């Protein structure tokens, strides 16, 4: 298994674990939802796994390129604080940096 695939598998396993612990009701992904290609840069697997657990990641590209660093930071904090996303501080930092660098202004 390549390092990238291994990381992806570990991320998926981590999310399933989180789902089991926190009681995710159901992941009602539409079977036909096409994959959305995020920019391949450090952090993109966390974004796919953790952000993508609750919503399709087209939300990210849709808002690009205008959000400032402060706006992306606020969006990630909103997902954690208001919407209860189970994201550890270190992962939140990686995700925020990924969004700022790849989809920010």
């Amino acid at each position, binding site marked *: 298994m390549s390092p990238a695939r291994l990381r992806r598998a570990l991320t998926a396993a981590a999310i399933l674990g989180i789902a089991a612990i926190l009681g*995710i*009701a*159901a992941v009602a992904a539409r079977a036909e939802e096409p994959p959305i290609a995020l920019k391949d840069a450090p952090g993109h697997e966390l974004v796919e796994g953790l952000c993508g657990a*609750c*919503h399709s990641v087209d939300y990210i590209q849709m*808002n690009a390129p205008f959000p400032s660093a402060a706006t992306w930071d606020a969006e990630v904090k909103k997902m954690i604080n208001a919407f209860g996303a189970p994201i550890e501080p270190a992962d939140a930092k990686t995700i925020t940096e990924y969004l700022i660098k790849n989809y920010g202004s």
Partner: protein
Amino acid sequence: MDRRTFLAGIGAGGLAGLPLALRAADRLVLSDELSAGTRAEAVLDALPGKRPLIKLSYRPPNYETPLAYFAEPITPNDAFFVRYHLARIPETIDAQTWRLKLGGDAIETPGELSLDDLKRFEQVELTAVCQCSGNRRGLFNPHVPGVQWGVGAMGCARWKGVRLKDVLAKAGLRKEAVELVLDGADGAVLEKTPDFVKSLPIWKALDENVLIAFEMNGAPLPHFNGFPARLVVPGWTGTYWMKHLTRLDAVSKPFDGFWMKSAYRIPKGRFPVVDRFLSQETADNTPITEMVVNTLITSPLPGQKLAARQPTTVSGIAWDGGYGIQSVEVSSDDGASWQKATLGPDVGRFAFRSWSARLPLAKPGARVILAKATNRLGASQPRELIPNPAGYHHNLVARVAVTAS
């Protein structure tokens, strides 16, 4: 065949049976004011039971109606926009086992109603616009994060149902009722995410025009528009039009859920609106209520080439928070002079009002056509946006850039 190839196939003539105006809907027309990211991500895509609409997000599904459908003042059910906040949406709902629960501390007799029970109340039908509070958010400058809607997060339909006030009267409303809390069958993926629950001030819940609707344009509600029953709150933005209704709670204290106290708020006193939701107001902000007066130009299309030195027909629709459209004016000289449009049939004060005008395009070259509506209260459309944190109430004077030659 992947989906995009399939859609390209439709574009090559698969919709030949449709009226000419609607065939334009199979071409993706996006405003160049939308962000580059939105224009890259938006595609025509068909949800089950729907025609191809402009997909902004797959999960939860947020799909807007293409411009071509607004050439008519009634929006077809299968082209009506789709908006969800949270991604756990029932794939189907069985109308036979569906129940609407009535409760709360300000109701005399809690209970539940089947669809048949509901249909035994006096049935009424009215025509009304349902518009997302954030329609046109994608056109805000500076940019406001969120679903980057263009002009199509709205539609107008004939809604048939029963009066909410009749249902509340039968259950018995106590005099201390302040708000009616609304919940639907859709919910969040995570248990910790606040469920999409809203409330209405009790005076609005008792408005004779507020319906629990089960039909739209003579057919059952489409699944993605709230089957089997949804709230219809004419004049107010779509956030109160709860889909897949499951529960109504009359309560004696203001509801303090996330979707009331933190979301769907506008700065207080900045917008020319009449209806206020006083039990939810703070010192700074207040829930969004009624829609502001607005217009959409449906013809000519953006970028269309027109003949110079002869009149061109400009047409569109206008709507407001239910006071009714008084007049629509158009301009081809950046607002230096305005000409009155002819209004189409009045199908009710909550509906889209169609309008058209013959406008001279004097000189060849790039031209901008403007349109603005005025309602019966005298409110009109601004040339500058009123900034607000969530990007609501975009009702700038409508404009379309064309070329005359």
